[in-house]
């Protein structure tokens, strides 16, 4: 038997030593300091910015104890522990204490355990202090009304200390003991240990999550996301993992006792063996977790295979599902329903449904109550009907199931499987990992787990051809525990109660494509408008923001009422009798499957509200000082309302309520099927968002699976916040995010490579999503800008009216658009099936002053000629940028103009104030982005007597004839060579490889044009996009900082005939690179025979245009100019060159 007194005495002695070691306090101080700094940082971020964007709220330190404190404290301290524990035997030897210790009557196991506790306690106890400190500081900050800081979520603190901290330290210390006993040399031992820790961190970082979890001895990946809504501390597998870690450390201690050099009476073999067995048990348990994950994935693969096998089978068309759902949270789930369905085109003998394999079918009856024979395997419910059913026949069957749905039966084919992500990329955790929740305190029955039968198999499993949405009516009575509230499709009607349940009935007046049910002991806020109950359901602990924002109640209602009324007037009536905004725990997966990974926060009659968004954001800190808003227009109420609006618009995590709620009005009523389904539905959904809320959103779950892309977005939010305040450019974070994401060169490459219908979306799904958004938004913009809000609404309404509950086609869409006066083919060309785009050229842009108006105010004529040199039609508008002293800068958009393929127009307009800059903004064209126009010289004092030109006028389209040969930096003849191929270190190479995705037609590119001046110049040829550089459609140039003349930009071309040729070099506007010194450039021209001619070019004095650089007699054939990075200025720019036959000598 072990003697506790001895153990404790050894432990106490060890603790005494450790507490007197300077390094102990050093490590403690460092880890406390880091945790503290991290907390301040995240608290500040959250406290100050979480009310600006729901995405920022994801970084709430209140729920990030493990990720912040955990990572820092445990990582720092686990390295510290090495240097505390590696000395235990060595110190006795060094301090010549070992013999008196060894000659005392206690066993080696007692010794090892005592020592272990002696190191563990001083390592672990400070964690208790730490969390108390965190709570205390948080509490003080919060109660004293500070804008930042609040106490942390309590269960996450407890699991941090007990489930994460304790086993972590136990494990590390025992490993340190073992290694130092086996490797006596302290230096070798500590290096070995550091390597072990590094290896395990590396494993954690680079392995897929399901494997990494096994290496996660610190337990950082075990905890899931804490929540005030659910009862669970930590997922069960997490708890098992922690227990296994603790067990492993005990086993290792046994082995330590066995290999300890001290002689004792115990049998080394026996102790070692028992220790090894305990370690083996721990390994088996951890292996079990791995096995569990692998089984999950296997199951999913098998289910997916089964789904695919059935994808050609005829599908019943469900018309109505009615019946009863009983929810005993955490325990039992009973479904007792009647399914009415219509037989599809072909006669069928079997009816095929998808139903979660976790639910046992206990009864399956036909309409007369006779049992039907069926098979429920691998999530497929295959019912054999007694008679063959003929087309159009209506059948009702009764289905009763028991058992809780299997949570892995969802999103079977998904571009992102959170288990397979590398953990460095697994920010998807922020979007939730649980497919649905069936917790003691909270239930979220998400449609994707198919707890309600789905007709046929999952959509788009095999290809897009099968795209199909089955709309049906519902009449469900849901039983939830007493006192619970439930949200479902539409209004919650109390339908009595029985012994165990409160019963609520959901029977919305219109069809739904899917049903979600959420239940908990919610706090409710609701009101009714025009027969629709609008309800907000939040956790009882999260009502603070409701109080803070309570004075916007009137505004919110007014907004909702107006939106609903206007929608109704336009024929887009809200289809259901209720709408609920429902809080859900962060752990609930809120992105869907497929390659699209669309948000699933919006469902018929329901919008999910993530716990980390509105419920816990710090609106209180934003509005803690009401005086600040007194003098603002509209006062604090308007400020709050505006903040609330932008808060949801800037939700990049799928919770944009404006676009989300808008889906009810159209896509939840009818959808396009077939191969065009996805893009068409996307456009229609965008249009409903524009009509109902005048906004577009941005959501791509892919960026949560891409390293730190999310952080970048969050940073963007914050940086933009300041930029917007300062620069006065009227751009929102939302639109700049959309632009930044969709204008990435890789996205454009996709867009130019294959059409929306031809592309394989699974190849690079993340880029594909942005391609869809790029093109879909452009199409929607073109329609919406042309038709305006009312007509667009009417267009949507007419399709909805004719197709509610069914599908519509592209030609239905075209017809309905035509009715409103929009010719899709003429305006957009074949946007679905082709990659062709318009290409806009502005050969002339000028302005002159005309006679003053009647009041004597000046008037200016703006006149532009625009050519579309491509065969495909396109849409654009002009934009004018005004700056004035003491006034905010403004960017004003002009009217939308369609330009047919190979056509040209002249556009004139009269303005009373001269803009400072002029832009052409194509909706979608080869020009890619908005570009600045180069205006002809303008004299503000000279009044020109001329006819006023307003509006669009067709002019003949003609390509300018020229004998010149132009080579632009985007042309094929443009390449980069480097005479001195540098041998780069491994790291640089790896980094270069990483960046290859981010090349713009072969060159690295500058994405922040505004910052070119501020940033240093690149040491490699880099592409910049700027309207003030030369280009046919895209205006780009390559540039590099002064070098040694080894890095060259090469322009090659074919000269059609021999003779004398003028070489001209294009100098872009020098202020594209503000503050840079322009000097002499050096080049070599090489002709077909290899003869070399030096070119010296003074870029400082040349005009910002074409400049003659030399005249040469050349043979016909290939001819190249190599422009090197050698200069006496700061910069060399390779924009474009031009060869022209000499006019004469």
């Amino acid at each position, binding site marked *: 038997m072990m003697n506790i*007194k*001895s153990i404790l*005495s*050894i432990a*106490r*002695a060890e603790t*005494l*030593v450790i507490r*007197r*070691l300077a390094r102990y306090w050093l490590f403690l101080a460092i880890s406390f300091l880091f945790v503290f700094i991290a907390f301040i940082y995240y608290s500040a971020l959250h406290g100050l910015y979480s009310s600006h964007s729901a995405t920022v709220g994801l970084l709430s330190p209140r729920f990030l104890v493990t990720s912040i404190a955990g990572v820092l404290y445990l990582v720092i301290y686990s390295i510290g522990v090495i240097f505390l524990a590696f000395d235990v035997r060595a*110190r006795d030897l060094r*301090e*010549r*204490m070992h*013999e*008196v*210790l*060894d*000659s*005392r*009557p*206690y*066993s080696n196991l007692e010794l090892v355990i005592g020592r272990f506790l002696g190191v563990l306690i001083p390592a672990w106890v400070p964690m208790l202090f730490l969390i108390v400190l965190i709570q205390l500081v948080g509490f003080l900050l919060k109660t004293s009304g500070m804008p930042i800081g609040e106490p942390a979520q309590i269960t996450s603190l407890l699991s941090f200390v007990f489930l994460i901290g304790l086993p972590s330290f136990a494990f590390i210390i025992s490993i340190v003991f073992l290694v130092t006993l086996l490797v006596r040399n302290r230096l070798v031992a500590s290096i070995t240990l550091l390597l072990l820790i590094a290896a395990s961190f590396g494993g954690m970082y680079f392995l897929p999550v399901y494997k990494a979890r096994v290496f996660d001895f610190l337990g950082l990946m075990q905890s899931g996301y804490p929540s005030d809504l659910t009862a669970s501390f930590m997922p069960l597998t997490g708890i098992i993992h922690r227990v296994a870690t603790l067990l492993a450390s005990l086993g290792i201690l046994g082995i330590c006792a066995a290999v300890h050099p001290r*002689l*004792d*009476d115990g049998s080394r073999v026996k102790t070692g063996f028992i220790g090894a067995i305990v370690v083996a048990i721990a390994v088996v348990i951890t292996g079990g977790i791995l096995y569990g994950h692998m089984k999950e994935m296997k199951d999913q693969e098998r289910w997916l295979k089964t789904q695919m096998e059935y994808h050609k089978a005829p599908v019943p068309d469900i018309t109505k599902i009615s019946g009863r759902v009983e929810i005993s949270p955490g325990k039992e789930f009973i479904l007792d329903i009647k399914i009415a369905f219509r037989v599809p085109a072909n006669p069928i003998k079997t009816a095929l449904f998808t139903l979660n394999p976790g639910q046992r079918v206990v009864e399956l009856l036909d309409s007369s109550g006779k049992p039907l024979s069926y098979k429920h395997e691998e999530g497929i419910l295959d019912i054999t009907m007694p008679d063959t059913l003929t087309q159009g026949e209506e059948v009702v069957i009764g289905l009763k199931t028991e058992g809780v749905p299997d949570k892995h039966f969802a999103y079977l084919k998904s571009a992102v499987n959170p288990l397979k992500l590398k953990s460095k990329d697994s920010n998807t955790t922020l979007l939730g990992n649980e497919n649905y929740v069936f917790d003691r305190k909270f239930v979220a029955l998400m449609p994707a787990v198919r707890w309600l039968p789905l007709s046929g198999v999952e959509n788009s499993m095999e290809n897009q051809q099968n795209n199909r949405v089955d709309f049906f009516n519902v009449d469900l009575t849901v039983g939830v525990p007493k006192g619970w509230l439930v949200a479902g499709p539409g209004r919650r009607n109390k339908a009595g109660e029985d012994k165990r349940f409160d019963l609520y009935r959901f029977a919305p007046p219109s069809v739904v494509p899917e049903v979600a049910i959420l239940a908990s002991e919610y706090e409710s806020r609701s009101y009714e408008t025009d027969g629709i109950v609008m309800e907000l359901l939040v956790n009882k602990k999260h009502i603070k923001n409701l109080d803070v924002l309570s004075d916007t109640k009137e505004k919110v209602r007014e907004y909702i009422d107006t939106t609903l009324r206007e929608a109704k007037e336009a024929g887009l009536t809200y289809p259901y009798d209720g709408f609920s905004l429902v809080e859900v725990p962060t752990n609930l997966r809120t992105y869907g499957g497929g390659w699209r990974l669309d948000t699933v926060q919006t469902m018929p009659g329901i919008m999910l509200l993530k716990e980390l968004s509105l419920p816990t954001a710090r609106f209180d800190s934003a509005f803690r000082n009401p005086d600040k808003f007194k003098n603002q227009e509209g006062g604090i109420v308007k400020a709050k309302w505006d903040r609330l609006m932008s808060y949801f618009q800037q939700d990049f995590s799928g919770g944009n309520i404006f676009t989300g709620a808008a889906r009810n009005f159209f896509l939840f009523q009818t959808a396009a099927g077939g191969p065009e389904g996805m893009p068409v539905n996307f456009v229609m959904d965008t249009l409903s968002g524009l009509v109902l809320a005048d906004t577009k959103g941005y959501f791509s779950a892919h960026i949560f699976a891409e390293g730190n892309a999310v952080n970048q977005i969050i940073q963007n939010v914050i940086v933009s916040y300041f930029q917007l305040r300062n620069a006065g450019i009227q751009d929102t974070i939302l639109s700049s995010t959309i632009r930044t994401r969709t204008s990435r060169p890789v996205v454009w490459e996709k867009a130019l490579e294959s059409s929306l219908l031809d592309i394989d979306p699974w190849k690079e799904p993340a880029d594909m999503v942005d391609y869809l958004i790029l093109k879909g938004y452009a199409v929607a913009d073109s329609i919406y800008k042309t038709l305006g809000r009312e007509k667009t609404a009417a267009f949507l309404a007419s399709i909805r009216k004719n197709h509610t509950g069914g599908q519509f086609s592209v030609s239905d869409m075209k017809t309905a658009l035509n009715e409103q006066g929009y010719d899709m083919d003429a305006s957009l060309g074949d946007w679905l099936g082709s990659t062709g785009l318009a290409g806009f050229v502005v050969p002339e842009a000028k302005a002159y002053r005309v006679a003053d108006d009647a009041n004597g105010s000046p008037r200016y004529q703006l006149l532009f000629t625009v050519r579309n040199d491509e065969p495909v039609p396109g849409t654009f508008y002009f934009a004018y940028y005004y700056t004035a002293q003491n006034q905010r800068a403004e960017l004003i958009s002009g009217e939308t103009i369609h330009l047919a393929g190979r056509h040209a127009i002249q556009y004139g307009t009269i303005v009373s104030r001269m803009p400072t800059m002029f832009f052409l903004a194509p909706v979608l064209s080869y020009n890619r982005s908005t570009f600045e126009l180069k205006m002809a010289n303008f004299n503000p004092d000279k009044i020109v007597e001329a006819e006023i030109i307003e509006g669009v006028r067709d002019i003949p389209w003609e390509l300018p004839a020229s004998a010149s040969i132009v080579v632009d930096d985007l042309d094929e003849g443009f390449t980069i060579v480097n005479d001195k191929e540098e041998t780069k270190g491994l790291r640089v190479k790896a980094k270069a490889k990483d960046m290859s995705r981010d090349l713009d037609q072969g060159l690295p590119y500058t994405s922040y044009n505004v910052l070119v001046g501020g940033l240093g110049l690149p040491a490699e040829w880099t592409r910049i996009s700027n309207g003030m550089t030369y280009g046919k459609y895209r205006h780009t140039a390559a540039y590099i900082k002064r070098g040694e003349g080894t890095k060259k930009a090469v322009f090659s071309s074919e000269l059609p005939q021999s003779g004398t040729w003028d070489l001209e070099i294009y100098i872009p506007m020098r202020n594209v690179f503000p503050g840079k010194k322009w000097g002499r450039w050096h080049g070599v021209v090489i002709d077909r025979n290899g003869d070399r001619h030096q070119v010296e070019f003074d870029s400082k004095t040349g005009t910002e245009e074409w400049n003659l650089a030399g005249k040469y007699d050349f043979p016909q054939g290939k001819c190249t100019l190599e422009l090197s990075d050698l200069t006496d200025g700061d910069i060399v720019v390779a924009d474009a060159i031009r060869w022209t036959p000499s006019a004469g000598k």
Partner: protein
Amino acid sequence: MGERERDISISIQKVRHVYKGGNPAINGMSLDIHTGLFGMLGPNGAGKSTLMRIICSLLVPTEGRVIVGGHDVVKERRHVRRLLGYLPQDFNAWRLHRVEEVLGTLATLSGLENNSERRARVAEILELVGLLDVSHRKVKSLSGGMVRRLGVAQALIHDPKILIVDEPTVGLDPEERIHFRQLMAKLGKDRIIILSTHIVGDLGAGCHDLALIDRGRLEFRGSPEKLIAHAKGFVFEIHMEGNRAEPSDQYEVVSQEQKLGRTIIRVVSRMGEIPDGAVPVDNPTLEEAYLAFMASNSVKQAVKGGEVQS
């Protein structure tokens, strides 16, 4: 357990110990030790410490058996360890601990589990070794002598039936030595004390039984008187003119005295022969007896070695 009542003894039976890759440190030794202060004399490297470690169950003898208070030191270490207190030759303590903390910890580990009893005992023993004043000081601030005394204290803390002290007087000042000798004599009344030393004077009057060890072998076992008796005829006095004793390979000088311009030296003969002008002494001291014994012993060894070689 009963060990306390019985008269306790240590029995060393045909013990041999060979360190890895070395000559035998103990080369066949049998010895029974009973209550009282037992002196273990021998030059450096004789094997004293090795034997003590074996008795303390810190080292497994290569051959032979050691029984301590009825328990085998290899099979019943816990019992053996309960019985003894050990002061190793090069004792030191955790530098960062306070004196009382070291004692407290070691006391608990020796079975003094009752807190108040232990505290009282720690105070008592600190008093006994004269460290009470420094009980709050950290070990790293103690002088060498204080550390030694702390070593004695830790060995005595649990009032063991057997006390094994290895060269305990190294580093003590003369006063401390006297004090230490007295303490040993007192403690030796009702327990076994094995005290190893190469300084004969340290044994003091309390020692009635001793062993002489050389090169791993027991060379002598008996009372100090017996050893002195053996030495008669090997210790001489030589009176010399001048004030310097000439070194000689015939004898070893033990002491020297100046008297009226003459030097009187006491010597121990190496070869057992009487050196020129020497007068045999009839009352050799224990130290002289030890030296005489060792001297003759080394000659014997050399002779034996010669025999083997030839």
